[in-house]
């Protein structure tokens, strides 16, 4: 049991740190409102040009999609890919091996502390003005509401595990700025933050199911809208969590070998 307490310690420490520096979220709250405004404007223009329905969504649903997607994004976002890379470049990663804690797990716990803080002091204040200004629909049903909440937790898991993979790869490559940028782009575009994936051509939609990104945003928001059954969406997300956790485990083992056997 002390181990679980230890990892809660990582989450708590990040929580305390972010609460102490909460001012930095103020600008974020404003910019998320602007993002939603921009995409809502684009969607209104598309629908004004004619179609009643694009990719299975009516205007009202598309606006709800974009609002919920951005609000969700405000919660799960973290920089552990950058933080792990820093640890590697500063040489602190070897020191992490001196503590009787599992490094990837401690990073995930830290990220969880960040997500919790964000949910409270960033996501909620950001959601409020968006919900007041835009015609955001409530979840399609009680099942989709609960499914969305659980899906948000899994979205955080998938997002953070992908970040860990990027960060740990720094042990082998030293630089991950390029990979970070590519990952961030794919997270927003292929994950469905910028556009619902149902707006994409059919072949692209099929291909994107083979990547984890759609499970971060598109899947939970579709559960919210009721366009994807909650059990199916959550099942897909859980599968990605399992696959990515396994990949992190394997990559971390190789990284530890690289550090201790080859000597960095």
């Amino acid at each position, binding site marked *: 049991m*002390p181990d679980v*307490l*230890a990892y*809660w*310690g*990582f989450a708590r*420490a990040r929580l*305390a*740190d972010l609460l102490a520096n909460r001012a930095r979220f103020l600008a974020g709250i404003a910019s998320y409102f602007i993002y939603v405004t921009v995409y809502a404007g684009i969607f209104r223009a598309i629908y004004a040009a004619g179609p009643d329905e694009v990719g299975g969504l009516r205007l009202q649903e598309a606006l709800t999609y974009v609002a919920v997607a951005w609000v969700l994004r405000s919660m799960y976002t973290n920089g552990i890919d950058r933080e792990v890379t820093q640890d590697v470049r*500063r*040489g*602190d990663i*070897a*020191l992490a*091996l*001196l*503590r*009787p*804690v599992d490094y990837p797990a401690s990073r995930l716990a830290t990220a969880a502390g960040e997500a919790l803080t964000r949910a409270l002091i960033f996501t909620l204040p950001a959601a409020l003005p968006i919900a007041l200004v835009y015609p955001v629909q409530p979840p399609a049903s009680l099942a989709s509401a609960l499914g969305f909440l659980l899906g948000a937790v899994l979205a955080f898991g998938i997002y953070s595990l992908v970040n860990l993979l990027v960060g740990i790869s720094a042990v082998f490559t030293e630089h991950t700025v390029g990979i970070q940028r590519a990952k961030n782009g794919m997270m927003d575009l292929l994950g469905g933050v910028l556009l619902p994936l149902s707006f994409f051509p059919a072949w692209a939609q099929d291909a994107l199911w083979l990547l984890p990104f759609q499970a971060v945003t598109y899947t939970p928001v579709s559960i919210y809208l009721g366009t994807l059954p909650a059990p199916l969406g959550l099942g897909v997300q859980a599968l990605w969590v399992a696959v990515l956790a396994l990949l992190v485990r394997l990559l971390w083992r190789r990284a530890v070998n690289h*550090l*201790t*056997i080859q*000597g960095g």
Partner: protein
Amino acid sequence: MADAIIHAEQLSRAFRLPTRREGLAGAFRDLLNPGYRTIHAVRDVSFTVPRGQSIAYLGPNGAGKSTTVKMLAGILKPTGGDLTVLGYHPHQERREYVRNIGVVFGQRSTLWYDLAVIESLRLLQRVYAIPEITFRQRLARFDEVLGLGKLLATPARKLSLGQRVRADIAAALLHDPPIVFLDEPTIGLDVAVKARIRDFLRHTNRELGTTLLLTTHDLGDVEAIAERVLVIDRGELVFDGTPRSLREELGRGDRLTIVAPQASTAALDAATADLGLTWDEVAEGKFQTVYDTRTIATAALVQRTLTAVSVEDLELREASIEDVLRELYERSERA
């Protein structure tokens, strides 16, 4: 040794490094046919350490000190020999092993960069499951000797070097490990902070019986803390003994300096010819000779000098560990 807590038996660590050929053509050849050379950072080092000992691990830059500490700490796998610490094989059983040790790197920090020091310590309290009362007692002791006070509330990234090292030492000893490894803990610190850290380490070793092994270039650390000295050079152990025996073993280098305006090197050389000593005039009217206390009694030398020439002033200087080490390093340089 029944209660030895470190057993190193022919401990070795080699690194395979790619060789780089020169120029563009060389770069292409490296790409197609990479060459490697092997560096023996640590070679066949054997020693045992009884519980409670304080050891200084000395050697010139690049001698293999840090490599040894990393192996002892379990974060580097030996390429040869056998190593057990507290009954563990540090590398194979790292996760369990590191619960029982403390490690300080003078040039690195194990504190969480963005957290206030007290938050890092609280985190470690959870990691090592330290009861609240014990945590407070230890913190009070650290505060008393290391003077943590105000820096507890400061994020690690804002600490000065001296503050950071003090906080790092507190973090490494918070779980009261039976053995602590310190890699250059006093590097770059001012005299006052060094003195504090030495006091603290000596106290920890003498009162709590914590086994210490520290690498350093600062012989003040050795004099203040160490009962035993290991000297490594080019990966090999070249000395193992007490600081005193290190001085005696290489007893050469004691100096006698006299101020004698009327004397000459010729007269002095003649007076001590049968001892096989020669003199240098190091300044106007100031002469110096270097002798080996194992073969020449200081009293006899002084007496002979005083009878031979008229001396205004006389100074005797015992070889410092620094001199001894310099000689040791130079000797292996020549070998």
